């Protein structure tokens, strides 16, 4: 199923509470990102693309599922932009749409192993599905 709802930069501002225009493109967030290699759109580009209203591209990116939610970007940002919140806001606009759950409940059993803590399942469901 494809994304049907149009999402604007204003929606991202409302959901994230983050004003992306405060970003000065210093790139410290990307420099700090421990998962940089996996991010098709690194945090600093995420911020500028939100500012430019290129939300659809962001919604189609892999970065929204690959962010570790470790807050290193938010912590080290000198402008208090909090890229992690922007990424989460875009992810929310995707998974809130019908049929866009990134992780389906019935796919989980095969991924389980004996030691896997509940927390991993609970948080993955929180992050990737509605």
């Amino acid at each position, binding site marked *: 199923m494809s994304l049907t709802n149009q999402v604007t930069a204003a929606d991202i501002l*409302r*959901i*994230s*509470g983050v004003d992306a225009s405060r970003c000065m493109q210093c790139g410290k967030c990307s420099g700090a990102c*421990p*998962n940089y290699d*996996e991010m098709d759109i690194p945090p600093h580009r995420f911020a500028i693309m939100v500012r430019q209203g290129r939300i659809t591209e962001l919604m189609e990116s892999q970065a929204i*599922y*690959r962010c*570790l*939610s*470790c*807050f*290193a970007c*938010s*912590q080290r940002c000198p402008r208090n932009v*909090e890229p*992690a*919140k922007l990424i*989460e*806001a875009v992810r*929310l606009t995707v998974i809130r749409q019908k049929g866009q759950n*990134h*992780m389906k409940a019935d796919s*989980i059993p095969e*991924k389980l*192993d004996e*030691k*896997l*803590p*509940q*927390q*991993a*399942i*609970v*948080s*993955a469901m*929180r*992050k*990737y599905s509605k």
Partner: protein
Amino acid sequence: MKYSYYPGCTLKTKAKDLDRYGRLCAEKLGIILEEPDNWQCCGGVYPQGEDEIATKLSSVRALADAKEKGQDLVTLCSACHHVLKRVNHDMKQNETIRLRANNYLKLDSPYQGETNVIHYLEMLRDKVGFDNLKKAVVNPQTDRKIAPYYGCLLLRPGKVMAFDDPEDPRIMEDFIRAIGATPVKYSQRNECCGGYLTLENKKAAQKRAGAVVDSAEQAGADLMITACPLCLYNLDANVPEGSVPVQYFTEILAEALGVKEEV
């Protein structure tokens, strides 16, 4: 000293050790941990969206319950701690979230972030005191070189968590010294292990976990300790066989306080 104690989902199942040892040690240190009757899972991840209200409510319930009892709320799992502290901060600082959450919950008196959320480690540092902890140790872990793993959730964002210097934490090092062992400082101690990705992208999680464990090994650690079940799993299951072992900090604490055998 009596506290409300929020164990969280994982400590009731896969991370029973973290919980059991934590309770035993508290008892030994003269602390009473009271578990509320009706706590619900915090969700394991802080809902960052400002319009996410429902997903914050379970935390608010636990916080409001502690407020009713007039107790500080102690947490042990890093993830629960992170979620509860940040939701508490929202209830204190964010008018919209506060209003909407209270509209849902219809509590006797609205909850406005009054409860003090403290991590077990903060309890040891600020309430018990590491000096007193040192005195209570019966089996000092003298020969051990322990690498503390903070991860992300305890420390960041520093302004909200107010736990320690997020770039140069020392609480776990001080804890390790208090139980007689030698702390090992290594660069990846506050870098993410990739735990949240273990289901979604196992490879990425393995890469991060490998980097963390490698860094601790290079620094000469013979044991790693953590406060987070997800980190523990990740640093244990997603790294090569024979890597440096990882334990909950409560387990080594129980050993030091001589209560481990009671389990």
